[in-house]
Each structure stands twice: as structure tokens, then as C-alpha cells.
């Protein structure tokens, strides 16, 4: 059953078209990695999926919700779609526990006791049980990013979006975040991720989508796409990333 369906999506900034007709289907439990050079439109496409970027043509549906800019429909959509950002974006004035419990309480009306149990559970899941009362500024980048993942998971989303979530981390910390994501993938979470981690894409993703100039240039099973690229653009990209 498809969770995310993109049909001929077009996105323009004024005259400049950055996404030029993209169609993509993400099945339940699938992990789809979007790769490509900066400016290829991969992050923008990801942000279209939860309505952070409005788009001008085509149609996106996520778990039965049609994505548009109507505030009420957007909120319903976003209860089902988690997103994790490159810069973590934790709320600095709230503790880790408060960061996690805020949205379930406000957006879903989850009761305090139940909320606390669920928050402790997701925090344990990302290996940070002891940080419930810590403030984000007292955590490392990797820990902050894991809290951000936990915060999204607490909403029990049907799909998780990851926007270059390890790009701001040094290699050591990248590993601990990728490990959490890999575990999520194994547990059957539907995931769409923009990444520069080629080995992660090859080992964890089911499908790799190579974007170039606002189009899906090449796509298919992860290993096949990365190990035997068909187009010169992907060949050049893979070579540059591996080197």
C-alpha cells in the first residue's frame, strides 16, 4: 500500500523551476533515499511532502491526505508525517522531555501520564533515557539529533522525512544517528531521506532516487542504482561521492 504518492510535481520560485515534474511512490515500510548534487531539488522535494514548501503543479498525497496549503488540512497531514532537519531545531527553552511531549499534548490531546510514558519510551529507543531533564544546549550534536528523531516519533507518524540529518555532524556523531535510523528502518518505518551518506543509502535504503536538474534522473533498487549507474551524470556523482 503506498504511503506517499507524488504525481507530476512542479515547483517554481518565480520564473525559476526547481522541480520539473516528479512522480514517485513510496510503499509502506519502504526506505527511499534521495541523492543528488546541491541544487538538484532533493531537499525541496522532501519539504513539499509535508507542506513546508508550497508547489505549483501536480499532486502529493500522504496517508490519504492531499497536500495543499490549507492550515487545517496541513495540521492533519503533519500529525502523520514526521520530519527531522539538518540543524535539529530542538526548542532550546524546553527540556528534552518537554520537547518530546509538547506536540502530542497540544496537537493530539494526549493525557499527561500517558504522554510521559510514551516520551520515555521513544527516548529509550534513541538511547537517551538519562537525558529526559537535560536542556538541548547541554547535549552533543548527535544527541540533539537523536532527540529530534524521538520528538518526531512521539507523534507516531506513518512516514518519517529526514533532511540531510547528519550533514552538520562530525563522522563520530554521524554514526550514532545513522544507527538509530537503521534500527527504525528495520522496524518497518516508512522513510524518505535526503542524504550524502552513500554507504547508508546502499545498505539501508530499498530504493535510491538520483535527482538532477529538478528531475528524477535515475531510480531503482539501491544497490543496482549505486553500483551500475546508467547515466553519465549519476556515474560522475557516484564517483565524486565515493572519492
Amino acid at each position: 500500500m503506498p504511503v506517499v504518492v507524488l504525481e507530476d510535481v512542479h515547483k517554481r520560485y518565480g520564473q525559476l523551476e526547481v522541480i520539473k515534474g516528479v512522480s514517485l511512490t513510496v510503499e509502506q515500510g519502504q526506505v527511499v533515499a534521495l541523492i543528488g548534487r546541491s541544487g538538484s531539488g532533493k531537499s525541496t522535494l522532501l519539504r513539499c511532502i509535508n507542506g513546508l514548501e508550497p508547489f505549483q503543479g501536480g499532486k502529493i498525497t500522504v496517508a490519504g491526505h492531499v497536500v495543499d496549503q490549507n492550515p487545517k488540512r496541513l495540521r492533519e497531514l503533519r500529525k502523520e508525517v514526521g520530519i527531522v532537519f539538518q540543524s535539529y531545531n530542538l526548542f532550546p527553552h524546553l527540556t528534552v522531555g518537554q520537547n518530546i511531549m509538547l506536540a502530542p499534548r497540544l496537537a493530539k490531546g494526549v493525557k499527561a501520564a500517558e504522554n510521559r510514558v510514551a516520551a520515555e519510551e521513544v527516548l529509550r529507543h534513541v538511547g537517551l533515557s538519562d537525558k529526559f531533564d537535560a536542556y538541548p544546549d547541554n547535549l552533543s550534536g548527535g544527541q540533539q539529533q537523536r532527540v529530534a528523531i524521538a520528538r518526531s516519533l512521539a507523534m507516531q507518524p506513518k512516514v518519517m522525512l529526514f533532511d540531510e540529518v547528519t550533514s552538520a555532524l562530525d563522522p563520530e556523531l554521524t554514526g550514532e544517528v545513522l544507527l538509530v535510523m537503521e534500527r527504525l528502518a528495520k522496524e518497518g518505518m516508512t522513510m524518505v531521506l535526503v542524504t550524502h551518506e552513500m554507504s547508508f543509502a546502499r545498505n539501508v535504503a530499498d530504493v535510491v532516487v538520483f535527482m538532477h536538474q529538478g528531475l528524477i534522473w535515475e531510480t531503482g533498487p539501491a544497490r543496482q542504482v549505486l553500483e551500475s549507474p546508467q547515466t553519465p551524470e549519476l556515474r560522475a556523482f557516484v564517483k565524486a561521492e565515493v572519492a
Partner: protein
Amino acid sequence: MIEHFGAQEMLYLISTVRWTLLLTLIAFAFGSVGGAVLALLRLSRHPLIRGVAYGVIELVQSVPVLMVLFLSYFGLSAAGIDLPPLPAASLALGVWAAAYLADIWRSAIEAVPYQQWEAASSLALTTPQQYVHIVLPQAIRIAIPPTIGFLVQLVKNTSIVSVVGMVELMRAGQLINNVTFEPFAVFGMVGLIYFVICFPLSYAGRKLEVVFHAGRRS
């Protein structure tokens, strides 16, 4: 006849401090409400609302406070609304404070990184929830130093109300100097009283900053 600047004059001076404080309080209360509303309107999604708020703020900031005071006292009077000096002065200082506080608070709200809005809206929070739980708590921390700075300005600027006949601290000093002719003693004392009001404000502002810093390194 020349009198000496003694205990009686001193008591009189201190008794007029209540008008300085009362005016500051009323103007700040009125200015806070007006400033908060203007700041939010200034950040509205609708260009027209935004434009009107911008116009009001710029207009008030671009004219002397004294002129706002003349308008609210003599102007309203000419228009048939006779306000006594205290309400007229409160209104003028309140409007003036609102225009400045609106700008201070708008910029504090805008200083919260837009990624905070993105993260909050991605978690399905409504716009009011984003303001109340995410943006305002961070904006308040940013706004404390300039707001206290403005409050100190407000305390001192209440002295302009003497032109509509109110005798607050500054005017009282003038009156006493007129009969004692001891300007250094009189105005030295007036200055000291202003300092005694303003310094604790600045000090409390710094303490508040620390409180809002709780658990944060940056």
C-alpha cells in the same frame, strides 16, 4: 524671597515622585498592551494589516513626544474632548511607548530563528500555539534588555508632562530652584532621585535575563 533648600523642600520633592512613578506605570501598562497588539499586527500575514501597523508605528516615532502630548491635551480639547492633565499625559506617553515597544518586540520575535517556526508547524501546532509555546518564550528573553532600557527612558521622559501643568519630579525641582536658587543642590537631588528609580530597574533587568537563561549556555 529666597528660601533655603531644606527638609521641607526635600519632602515636597519626594512627594512629587509619585506622579513620575504613576505616569510611568500607566504609560508602560498602556504601551505594553498597545505595543503587543501593534507588534502582532506588524507581523500579520495580510499586507494591509501589516501596512497600517507599520504606518502607525512610524508616524508616532517620527514626531516629538511633546507633540503627541500637545495633541492629546490641547488637540482633543479643541475637538471637544476635555481631558484633565493626568489622563491626557498618560494617553500621550502610552501611545508613544506603544510605538517603541511594538518595534522592540517585533524585532525580538523576528530574532527567533525561522527554523523554530518550521519545527513547530511540522509538529502540527497551530499558529497561536507556535507563538505561545515556542516563539514568545524565546522572544521574551531577547526582548528583556531593550525593554528595560526603554522603561528607563520612559521614567525620565515623564518630565515633559510639566508643559500641561502637572508637577512631577522635574517640574518640582524647577519650582524649588525658583525660590531657593540653589541649582546644584536642587537638581543634584533631582538627578539622584531619578538614579534611585532607574538603577534598580536596570539591575532587575539583568537579574531577569539570568532567570530566563536557565539551563542555557548560549
